[in-house]
């Protein structure tokens, strides 16, 4: 009776979505099939390991079997579980049951977190089925406990991130066509994520003790671990914003997560640069990576529709609206450029005093290109009278399209006028070749090219801001 009431109390304390999802998940055929298959695979490998160990006693087989178990577990926890979470969220949207859940007062955040927690609970069940076998591989020699723990911790973080991506993508697709596209996007992302995760697991298994005790690797693992949890948070916030009703101000969560995760990334980059005594080219690499994050996360996690519901009409930066989310992405990109630029400046001053033109240009270009193309994405949607073109999803498509057009058109023009697809002048606005030119090449033409890029970017930002502010006001009046 005591045990029963304790379990009842536990169930009461867990959110209703988690209870429902776990109940549905455990009942689903997909769980039974994959759980059974995982056990069979692990058991078969264990039998093979026992046979090999009996034949060649004293040989270290551990790392091969450790890698094998992680591969089997990774296939389920990096692919199946996140995809099941994605499908579960899509079904909620297709059947419009999420609306009914929202009306109960649960809120988009609870729904999204409930889905994610239940998926992770299922991953934990798979992990616990596999755990005795992973431990068994330790007794086959060749790996140590630090490797096992490192691999499992990183795998958990990776699975958590991929699951949050699955849930987030599902909430961004509101139409039938959008959901079909989302299926392909998720399959592609999870496929790549699974391959990367499994490959990394094999690296840990093969490189063994040497790798996990290496300082650089330890820094990387800590950074990657923290960043993957930060990204998971951002993904869940953005999923909740995607699921929120028009009557709810949903900007707060994603914006806070975007800023905090971004600042953490910058702080980590700064720490690594200072500890490793980085050079200007490292700063440029850092700027490219952080700009990439701010751009992609800006376009996909914090981009918003015009206007805001009436109850959210107060407040400042956390007030919803496309204009504010656009400015936030631009400001974060600028902060990133400022930090890396200052580091290059500091290096220049404290060394020979000669400014590294390529590094400065590269840092500026890595700020200007994403800002320019985010602005173009906004302008493409907002300057037309078609309402659907100004939705966040259309802005994202506009952003990607403008990047593709920018790359292809610049290269074509460069081929015609400069005789090479990598020409310096015609690729001034090319976000791919242009960026490489600014970072990698020298020449006076690049000085005028960076001025042109800066001028066009400023104009595009100004126009995008004007259009966004005007539409925000119209939609909210």
């Amino acid at each position, binding site marked *: 009776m005591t045990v029963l009431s304790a379990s009842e109390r536990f169930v*009461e304390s867990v959110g*209703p*979505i988690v*209870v*429902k999802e776990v*109940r*549905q998940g455990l*009942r*689903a055929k997909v769980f039974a099939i994959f759980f059974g298959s995982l056990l069979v695979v692990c058991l078969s490998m264990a039998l093979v390991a026992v046979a090999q160990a009996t034949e060649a006693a004293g040989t270290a087989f551990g790392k091969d079997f450790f890698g094998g178990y992680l591969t089997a577990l990774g296939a389920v926890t990096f692919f199946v579980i996140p995809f099941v979470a994605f499908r579960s969220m899509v079904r909620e949207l297709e*059947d*419009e*049951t999420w*609306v*009914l*859940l*929202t*009306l*109960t*007062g*649960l809120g988009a955040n609870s729904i999204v977190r409930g889905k994610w927690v239940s998926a992770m609970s299922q991953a934990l069940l798979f992990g616990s089925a596999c755990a005795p076998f992973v431990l068994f591989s330790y007794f086959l020699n060749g790996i140590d406990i630090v490797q096992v723990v490192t691999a499992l911790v990183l795998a958990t973080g990776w699975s958590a991130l991929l699951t949050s991506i699955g849930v987030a993508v599902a909430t961004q697709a509101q139409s039938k066509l959008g959901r079909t596209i989302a299926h392909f996007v998720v399959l592609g992302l999870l496929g790549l994520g699974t391959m990367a995760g499994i490959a990394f697991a094999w690296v840990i298994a093969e490189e063994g003790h040497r790798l996990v005790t290496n300082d650089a690797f330890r820094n990387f693992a800590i950074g990657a671990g923290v960043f993957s949890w930060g990204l998971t948070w951002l993904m869940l916030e953005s999923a909740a914003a995607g699921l929120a*009703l*028009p*009557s*709810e101000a949903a900007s707060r969560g994603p914006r806070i997560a975007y800023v905090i995760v971004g600042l953490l990334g910058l702080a980590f980059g700064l720490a690594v640069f200072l500890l490793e005594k980085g050079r200007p080219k490292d700063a440029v690499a850092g700027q490219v990576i952080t700009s990439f994050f701010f751009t992609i996360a800006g376009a996909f996690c914090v981009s918003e529709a015009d206007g805001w*519901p*009436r*109850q959210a009409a107060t407040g400042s930066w956390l007030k919803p609206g496309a204009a504010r989310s656009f400015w936030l992405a631009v400001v974060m990109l600028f902060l990133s450029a400022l930090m890396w630029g200052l580091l290059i400046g500091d290096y220049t001053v404290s060394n020979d005093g000669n400014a590294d033109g390529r590094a400065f240009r590269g840092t500026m270009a890595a700020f200007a290109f994403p800002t320019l193309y985010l602005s173009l994405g906004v302008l493409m949607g907002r300057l037309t*009278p078609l*309402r659907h073109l100004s939705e966040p999803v259309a802005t994202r498509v506009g952003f990607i399209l403008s990047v593709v057009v920018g790359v292809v058109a610049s290269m074509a023009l460069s081929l015609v006028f400069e005789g090479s697809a990598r020409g310096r002048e015609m690729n001034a606005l090319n976000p791919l070749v242009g960026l490489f030119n600014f970072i990698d090449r020298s020449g006076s033409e690049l000085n005028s090219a960076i001025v042109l890029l800066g001028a066009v970017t400023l104009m595009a930002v100004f126009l995008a801001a004007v259009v966004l502010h005007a539409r925000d006001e119209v939609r909210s009046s």
Partner: protein
Amino acid sequence: MSALLEVKGLTRYYGALKAVDDITFSLPAGTILGFIGPNGAGKSTTMRIIATLDVPTSGEVLLDGKSLVARPDQARPLLGYMPDRYGTYDDMTVFEFLDFFARAYRLRGNERKARVDSVMDFTGLMPLKDKLTSELSKGMKQRVALGRTLLHDPKLLILDEPADGLDPRARIELRELLRALASQGKAVLISSHILTELSEICDTCAIIEQGHLLATGTVQEVLSRTSNAAAFSEVELTLWAGAGMPLEEIARKTERLLLEQPLVTNVSVLNNALRFRLELAVGATPASGWVEEASVRVLKVLVNAEIPVTSFRTREHDLEDAFMSVTKGRVQ
């Protein structure tokens, strides 16, 4: 009676499209309001705004005195919304489904169990509690959905096309359930295409088209207003077959006579009965009692021509007529 729900000047734009245009009505507790209108009239948009699922471009909605536009979170516990899609989880039993939503409404322990049992009892779902929702008929699924909306004991129920696709028996049962809910003091806002159904359920009705509220009031008020204002009326008369003349011949003669009369249109013969419509010319303003006057004139002509008429009656004005009358000239 003070209004539980007050909708004031509700307007909703989607881009350039004005989906709802300055709608104002109120709904007291314990009454059922039928929301009538063709597809795309703005019914669902209005209902979604009242259910806090959408936001108006302008206007105000007060539920129990609280603005659900400004504070939707405070209004939600007071309302239950049933969309046209029932939204059940196929792999859950009836009990699990209701229990899950009861948890979501933060009902705990014995209180939750009691509430789920009471809702299953009220909706007649108790014998089906262990059945998967995917195995239920449409009528039963609809009961499950209705049960879900009742779990937190809301004051206002918003039901979007609840009778759609139900068989006659399920419709009658739904009607009885809604009547019982209204008698408990709940206000019910219900939309339907089946206007005869609504007239039997509703105390008040609101006719909406192209985002405009064209008529509102009690069903009787709307009927009497629209029947006086109607530009047409359906009439049915029956003939006596034993008048010494073959029935077919009498019917033909009657049809000829009717067609000669002013205002008579759409004459059709069915065995010993004839149906026709008394209809004013386009643009003519209906004067009070014009139907009665025209009927007397037609009947006089028939009697003078020794047509053996055994019954002559104008069909009673119903919500469908009211709807057609009110929307006349505006239906696209």
